């Protein structure tokens, strides 16, 4: 190989390494610190509207933004009847500069103005570092536009009382086999129902939380059944067999005492957390949204205050090889492209779009960060490096709400003995309507 070729190859390799190292820095280059684009004495007034009555993590981020632009004000407002008022608000005299969007809103004709009014955050002029967002939750439109910034992600899994596992000398199970084994040991150690959860037909309910990721993975692996599932074709119910069978197996093995769950956990949010804080539940099935409520309730639980313990969030190990990670968007921000103060609005979004800021917001809200870095909140540390082949994100499937509702109803019926797995599979398309 002559010398010139060697030089070219080595230069190319060096360049590749440099770009590789740049990683999430993307457009910003290697610097991760926010560098204000405008003069720090710029005056501005922005409004953010959303569905949270209380959005403390955003307000903390606003405080940090004030450090760069102190002469302005960003106001967050909760909109009553959000889905009905946001569109009018966007068209009104006091239209918000930033508004909350949720994935389900896309495709809803009534809410189309939310997307049509949204700024394209991928516009290179805006210099927004979208590369730090995980690919799975980065919502890119078909035309390449990015109309929303994911602020929080969520998933389904279980809260694990780490102190119990340490006390009993156990490791958190990674596969279904390990889960069964672990549950047997825990039962032997006196834990009547090693796994608990809310016995409801809602998304944080036992059946959905444990089995839906497996169902989604089934659909991901065979997208051909997706259309029939969405059209509630009974034969498509076969896709539910494997996850429902595993669910039934879980109940039958005694890993979870459904009656106990029904008796002791009244709802799918507050009661789940407060029961978990009693300290005697090794594993509590729940959604990421439930986990987000734990932080504030630590002090409200007398049992937890008296005997605090370490807890983490894990994906429930429903598969033989391991669990399935539903990497879902929770809420997203869109910028009103008709904002009267569009520059500063984009500047705020540019500020927010970093592993640090989104990570801090997620940590404060105790939801899953949409960025690649899970390290800020150790409760979700287990999700870091989760195998991609067992991860399912919104792009992998297009299961419509109707199909989801059928699965939720089927799962609820199976664990409560209302239906056998066969009946549920056969009855697909008419279960939720019963």
């Amino acid at each position, binding site marked *: 190989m002559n010398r010139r070729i060697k030089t070219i190859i080595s230069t190319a390799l060096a360049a590749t390494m440099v770009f590789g190292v740049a990683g999430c820095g993307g457009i910003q280059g290697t610097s991760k610190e926010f560098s204000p684009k405008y003069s720090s004495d710029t005056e501005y007034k922005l409004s953010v509207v959303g569905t949270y009555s*209380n959005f*403390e993590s955003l*307000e903390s981020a606003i405080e940090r933004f004030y450090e760069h632009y102190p002469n302005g004000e960003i106001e967050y407002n909760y909109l*009553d009847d959000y889905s009905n008022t946001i569109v009018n608000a966007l068209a009104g005299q006091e239209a918000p500069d930033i508004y909350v969007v949720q994935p389900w809103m896309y495709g809803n004709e009534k809410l189309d103005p939310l997307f049509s009014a949204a700024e394209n955050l991928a516009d290179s002029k805006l210099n927004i570092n979208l590369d730090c967002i995980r690919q799975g939750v980065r919502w890119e439109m078909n035309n390449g536009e990015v109309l929303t910034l994911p602020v929080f992600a969520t998933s389904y899994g279980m809260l694990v009382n780490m102190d119990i596992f340490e006390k009993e000398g156990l490791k958190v199970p990674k596969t279904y086999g390990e889960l069964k084994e672990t549950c047997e040991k825990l039962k032997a150690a006196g834990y009547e129902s090693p796994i608990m959860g809310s016995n409801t037909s809602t998304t944080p309910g036992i059946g959905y939380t444990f089995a839906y990721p497996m169902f989604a993975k089934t659909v991901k692996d065979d997208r051909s059944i997706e259309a029939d599932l969405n059209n509630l074709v009974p034969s498509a119910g076969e896709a539910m067999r494997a996850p429902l069978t595993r669910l039934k197996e879980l109940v039958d093995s005694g890993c979870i005492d459904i009656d106990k769950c029904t008796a002791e956990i009244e709802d799918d949010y507050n009661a789940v957390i407060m029961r978990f804080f009693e300290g005697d539940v090794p594993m509590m099935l729940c959604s990421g949204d439930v986990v987000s409520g734990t932080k504030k309730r630590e002090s409200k639980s007398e049992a937890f205050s008296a005997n605090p313990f370490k807890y983490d969030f894990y994906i429930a190990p429903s598969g033989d090889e391991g669990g399935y990670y539903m990497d879902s968007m929770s809420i997203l921000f869109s910028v009103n492209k008709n904002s009267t103060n569009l520059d500063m609005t984009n500047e705020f979004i540019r500020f927010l779009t970093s592993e640090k800021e989104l990570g801090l917001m997620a940590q404060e809200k105790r939801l899953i960060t949409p960025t690649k870095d899970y390290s800020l909140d150790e409760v979700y540390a287990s999700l870091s490096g989760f195998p991609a082949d067992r991860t399912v994100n919104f792009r992998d499937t297009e299961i419509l709400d109707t199909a989801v509702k059928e699965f939720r109803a089927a799962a609820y019926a199976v664990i409560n003995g209302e239906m056998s797995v066969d009946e549920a599979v056969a009855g697909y398309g008419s279960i939720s309507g019963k």
Partner: protein
Amino acid sequence: MKKRYIIIINIVIVGLILFIIVKYANDRASESNHASIASFEKMTTTTEQIIANYLEDEQHLCDIWSNYVNESADAGTPMTVEEAISYIRKAKISPEISGHLIYIDDGSMKGISTSPNTTNPSDYSVNYSHISIFDNLEISDINGVVSLTRAYTNPLNGIQSIAVLNNVKVLDDETGAMRAGLLLRVVPVSMLEQKLVFLKGEYENVEISLIDWDGDYMIRGKSLKNSNFFEYFKSYNPMSVQEYNKVIDTIRTGVGSMHMRNSRNEDSVIAYTPVSNLNSWFLVAYIPAKELTVNRSIDWILLGIVTMGLMGLLHFNMIILLGFNRKLSVAAAAANQANEAKSLFLSTMSHDIRTPMNAIIGMNEMILRDSHDEEILMYSENIRAAGNTLLGIINDILDFSKIEAGKMEIIDVDYNFVSLLNDLVNMVQRKADEKGLVFKLEVDREIPRILHGDEIRIKQVIINILSNAVKYTKEGSVIFSISGKKCEDEPDHIMLHVSVKDTGIGIKKEELDKLFVAFERIEEKRNRNIEGTGLGMAIAQSFLNMMGSKIHVDSEYGKGSEFSFDLKQKVVKWEPLGDFETAYKNFLRERKKYSVQFLAPKARVLVVDDTEVNLKVFVSLLNKTKMQIDTADSGDAAIALFRRNRYDVIFLDHMMPDKDGIETIKEMKACTDTPNQKTPVICLTANAVSGMREMYINAGFDDYLTKPIDTGRLESMLLTYLPADLVEKAGENGEEKKEPAVVHNILVVNEDVEFLRGVREWMPAHINAAVAKSGEQALAYLKKHEPELVLMDSSIQGQAEFDKDKLLQLCFKELSTEEIISQVDKYFDEGGERREHE
């Protein structure tokens, strides 16, 4: 004061001033802050009034609308919803404000609006079914009060708004039935906020919030995070549940202010007040504390300037003080130098006067001894008197210099009061006799014999008073009286009252003050022929002051004076003095010319003095003792003799040229090739200033004798130091007795150590007494010595071990010293007889 103390005090003062400044500034700032907060509270109530008035106005306008609609209904011509809205649309002026009329009787909460939907201009329908703003309102019966919703999202335009309400009765055009409706006058929150813009002028960072009973906001200040004020307060101000509830109650029930921490943990102030005419709405004004309490910060520049100023002043003062100190040091050094010079002068003067005085008095003594010519004797006696006077003057000056220098000390010892009286009377009687004055003595017989005190100074005080009395009395008498009274509070003490009364010239009252002033003499002109320094009474008064007493003077000019003082003395022995007058008369009767106390022809004495005449005086004075006296006129000559001959006693002068007495004695002590290693060496010196005795003893001398030489003292000292076997009794008139003088060696045994200490003092010269304080000690003594008599107190046990023939037991406590001496003499007299018989 040391330099560092001055610096510390200055720093403390500077610190104190700074502290006062800071405290003053803080107090003022605190007052100012209170005023600021009061003003802030006032602003809050003013704002509340504005808001209350505004909301009342809004309610009033809403009521006008509803009244119009309801009046139509009451008049039998009810309006449909569309008609009512159409009326309101015409009646309302502000485009931002809209009216919503919704049905509440069927719970649908739906109706129509004066303004269209922002996304559909033809759509006026409004739906409140998903907006929970009526939960806390009695919407079915709103009766004349301001009914206000929380801030909510106007469903038609998405604007945050509030609404005031009233009930209306409208006609359902579809069914023709009367319907219960709710009329809402919907006002954007931003309009209300505009009413508060005026506040920005007064307080830049004030934020006004309106909260409801639960703490939910109608208007929210920028800094107040969270959707609920109380939640916000709790989040950033950790406290117990009780404290939290108290805070909520305080805000809900009154007008006032409090400090709180904001989300950045900064101190903030909130002022709160309920909004008038509105149930359960409260105005909360928030402001960062630093804006209200900006004056609280200490003016560091001013403080710095003051500090620098004070430090500068401190340094300036230090420099000035150091300058003064330097001058003072120089002055002090000069004063010390002068003082040293004075001491040296006094020492030299004392020495240089005493040296020739030794010759004068010594030689005169020889004349008195040897002359038989009455006229010469008279002259000689005058020389002696003048010499003694001169010595007295020198002593006074020395004493006064000691008192001035603070070096005079009172040294208490046990003393024999009889001996003290003897000396006093002895000295004064002669002077009185010479002036032809009657010297009368009145001594209390009950005064104890042995007392404890500074005998020398007491003697000096009384002599000074007596001498003055004699000096200033031309004719008449001097009465010297002493009485004693037991102290009641201190049973072992006696209070002596000493009085000297004369018929002299007396003292004018105006002159009395001068009496005790040093170097001041009363009626100087009149008394200029009377010798004296003017120090005597000042010294006497000083001594008495040191002993806790003072002289009292009672005088009548031209008639006489009485000087008296009371002096407390510790009693060692309560044995009464007895009839002193008789004893003294005997003493006077027996007073004769000089007679030598002893003979010691075998004794060999060396006297060393650089002044030849002094050597002559010494030799002459001791001539009658028949001692062998060698003289040396220098230290070296003395050392040569010291090495060659054996001496029984050596008298060595101190101040000599070349080798002085101290150098000489050091060399003598270092000598090994001498027969005089144990020979006592007595310092014979004219140096009589204070502290000399100790200095000489420390230098190695055994004793100390001052010049001019007092023959009596010299002979007594020789009797002390000469070996007893060399001493013989002297005969009458100094003639040698045919029999050799016998000195009896005795051993006195008594447990009373004080008694033993005084034994040698009162034992006559012919009795050489050793002492032992116990029988055992006495026996130990007897193993090495052979005293002729063991004189033992009857209280001592174990007499059996002593030789009965040599043992005399007496009860010392019950006997006077004379009686003891008498018993001892009697023993030896009888012993002589015994020996004769044998």
